[in-house]
């Protein structure tokens, strides 16, 4: 059970892609059980018994969950795919992973978390000798992580080797035996997990002295509460959306960090999107600065509400545009005069945020798709911040970014709150949620089942609130969710 870690852009995913035949190496060799191998394609790697979960969920959103799970090795009868059996098996397999969903449902109707679980299940179904997981937990909930670890331990007991990439260090200590630390595309240390303590690990990754690493806490949040002042910047009232939201109300006041707690599919992303006006609602209202906004993204932005989307790949970056263009994309109205882009202003903004967020790119002109996951995330954060918003909706803001970057981002969030911004924080990482938020609104099956304030803001209370809340069977009503004409949903 081998951990592969390194800061964003260290080359972990690239290494994995080279090992599994996505890229061919310029030089060097890959050895599988001693003998040298060179895979022409991921298929070849799979056939050799290397099964991989790549960083960004790589499934086919439009196909059903079951078909995704079995794609390429469907159970067959008389040479034809036996779809009933496929569905049945899919249902059973997924249940073991805590995903209780009609396997006939299109994958895209699942939340990212659930999709991640499907991807994991798929990878494990191949009887592989080596399983590689590139940040499998980045969008997983504590509970799912436990499930996953269950799987991993089982695999290990079966004598299957596992390469495990994650930015959540404590996870590594939980399950990994050995660790390889990468920095700037090179290996800086290989050792037993137990032999390197947390701080050393971090300093190795970041290439900084232990001293200045230690100054970071577990998270970059100052523990002190922010002083919250004045009327709410954003007040969402009784948001309704069939199958997903059931009367959710959230208030965000200036200088306040409101956490959204809940399990996968509890509707946190939906809540954020709804507030943003990116999701048509069946009912409910959103007030910004006391006045109800028109329910479009543009209007919300103008009113000073911005969102960092959960799905970086599908809803975040514009791949073939440059880092610069990506950063100012949303801010175009502010930096154009008579339709012309004001280059000076643009560069000014871009420089400022690339420095402030320490975005690692060869130049502002580099295609954003060439950045590592973490740096892409920072670019998106910059896109939000350069709109100088009143309220910030962050859906998994630190998803898949390394400890260093994560601390920075969290620091920024904290700082913003101190400057009087209202922040809505969605995070699957409990300590981030707990330490980050002044107040946590707990969602379950699209309903608010509780609110933690002051000292109640702790893991245990969150868990108990969730546990005590009664389940809502009718909510998960099957079949595709409501039709829906918002642009962002056309091409994902």
């Amino acid at each position, binding site marked *: 059970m081998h951990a592969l870690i390194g800061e964003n852009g260290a080359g972990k995913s690239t290494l994995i892609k080279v090992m599994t035949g996505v890229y061919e190496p310029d030089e060097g060799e890959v050895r599988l059980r001693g003998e040298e191998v060179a895979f022409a394609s991921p298929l070849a790697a799979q056939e050799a018994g290397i099964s991989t979960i790549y960083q960004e969920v790589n499934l086919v959103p439009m196909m059903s969950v079951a078909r995704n799970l079995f794609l390429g090795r469907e159970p067959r009868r008389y040479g034809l795919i036996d779809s009933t059996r496929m569905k049945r098996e899919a249902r059973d397999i997924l249940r073991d992973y805590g995903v209780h969903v009609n396997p006939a449902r299109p994958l895209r109707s699942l939340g990212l978390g659930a999709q991640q679980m499907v991807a994991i299940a798929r990878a494990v179904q191949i009887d592989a000798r080596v399983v590689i997981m590139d940040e499998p937990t980045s969008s997983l909930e504590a509970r799912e992580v436990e499930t996953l670890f269950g799987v991993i331990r089982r695999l290990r007991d079966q004598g299957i080797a596992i390469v495990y990439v994650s930015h959540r260090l404590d996870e590594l200590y939980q399950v990994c035996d050995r660790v390889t630390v990468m920095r700037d595309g090179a290996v800086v240390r290989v050792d037993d997990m137990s032999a390197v303590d947390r701080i050393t690990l971090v300093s190795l990754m970041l290439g900084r002295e232990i001293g200045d690493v230690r100054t970071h806490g577990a998270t970059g949040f100052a523990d002190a509460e922010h002083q919250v002042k004045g009327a709410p910047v954003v007040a969402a009232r009784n948001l309704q959306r069939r199958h997903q939201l059931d009367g959710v109300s959230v208030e965000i006041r200036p200088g306040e960090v409101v956490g959204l707690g809940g399990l996968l599919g509890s509707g946190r992303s939906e809540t954020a999107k709804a507030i943003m006006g990116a999701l048509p609602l069946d009912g409910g209202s959103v007030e910004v600065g006391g006045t109800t906004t028109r329910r479009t*993204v543009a209007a919300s932005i103008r009113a000073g509400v911005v969102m960092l989307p959960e799905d970086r790949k599908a809803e975040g970056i514009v791949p073939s545009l440059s880092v610069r263009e990506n950063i100012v994309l949303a801010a175009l109205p502010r930096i154009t005069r008579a339709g012309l882009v004001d280059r000076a202003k643009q560069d000014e903004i871009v420089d400022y945020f690339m420095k402030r967020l320490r975005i690692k790119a060869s130049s502002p002109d580099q295609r954003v798709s060439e950045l590592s996951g973490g740096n892409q995330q920072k670019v998106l954060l910059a896109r939000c911040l350069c709109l100088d918003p009143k309220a910030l909706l962050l859906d998994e803001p630190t998803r898949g970014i390394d400890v260093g970057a994560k601390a920075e981002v969290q620091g920024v969030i904290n700082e913003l709150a101190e400057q009087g911004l209202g922040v809505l924080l969605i995070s699957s990482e409990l300590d981030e949620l707990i330490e980050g938020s002044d107040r946590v609104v707990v969602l379950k099956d699209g309903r608010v089942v509780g609110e933690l304030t002051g000292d109640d803001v702790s893991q245990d209370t969150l868990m108990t609130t969730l546990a005590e809340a009664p389940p809502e069977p009718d909510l998960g009503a099957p079949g595709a969710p409501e039709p829906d004409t918002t*642009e962002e*949903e056309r091409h994902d």
Partner: protein
Amino acid sequence: MTDVAVRPTPAVLDRNRVVTWLQDYGVYAAIAVLIAINTAIKPSFFSMDNFRVQAFQVVPVLIVALGMALVITTEGIDLSVGAVIALSSAVIPLYLGYGPWLSIVIALVAGCVSGLLAGLMVAVANVQPIIATLALMIGVRGFAVILNGASAKSVTDETIGALGLDSWFGIPQEVWIAVVIVLVVAFVVRRTAFGRRLTAIGDNRAASALAGLPVKRVLVAVYIISGLLAAIAGVFLVGHGGYADPSNYGLNYELSAITAVVVGGTPLTGGRIKVLGTVAGAVFMQLVAATLIQNNVKNSYSQMVEAVIIIGAVYAARGRSGR
């Protein structure tokens, strides 16, 4: 922090350099080659006269191709351009009574209206571009022929004739106007927010929408522009031919335009656009046609040769392969 991590491997770089060179200059090189070959065969090919003839024939395609390029950038396609050409050609004789300029204006407006329809179907009703514009392609031509009546009408107006035949400083008026249009489009694409949005929407529509871009508005605008440019082409054709023939004008222009755009290096998958490349693409295809006809190549062989050349050109200009 240092930037070492982001420096791609040299191998990648080299390949890119070659590919990008081909992408950027392949078409121009090809044009040069074609001219050279023809001049070798027949020196008179390299003459102002000949170039003028080629110019007259390429300008309408080129103008349509520019609009097409914009549409393609948004991941769309516009099959209705040929029909729009027919429409504007049908409108001109109808309103010639009110003077050439007014009739031209009305023709252009007609083009915009058709574009608006396409835009609304695509942006608002979410109809897939190819089918929305296919419907227009059939319907608009029918409408144009009804407007004009079955047979061609001759158009003898000087102003319009001049647009299609006369020159300023030995260069056809059409060409001057085309140059202006090219510059405007290039400027819009490079320097304006509209251009930026265009590419963003074509590249990742979901993200663009979440970033609050006016997706619908941009889409509608793009189809209107395409309609407008097609209408302009229609006016030029009327001027050049001296008559309006809605039932035959603009046939297959959509294909010629798309070919020009793609040969020019704009990917059909949207998100990127090459304005000058499109111009080069149109010119290149025109020269190919000229070469074949001037050497009296049989229609059957011309088609095959053309096919091979298209493939060759696109192959040379093709983007960095996926992995």
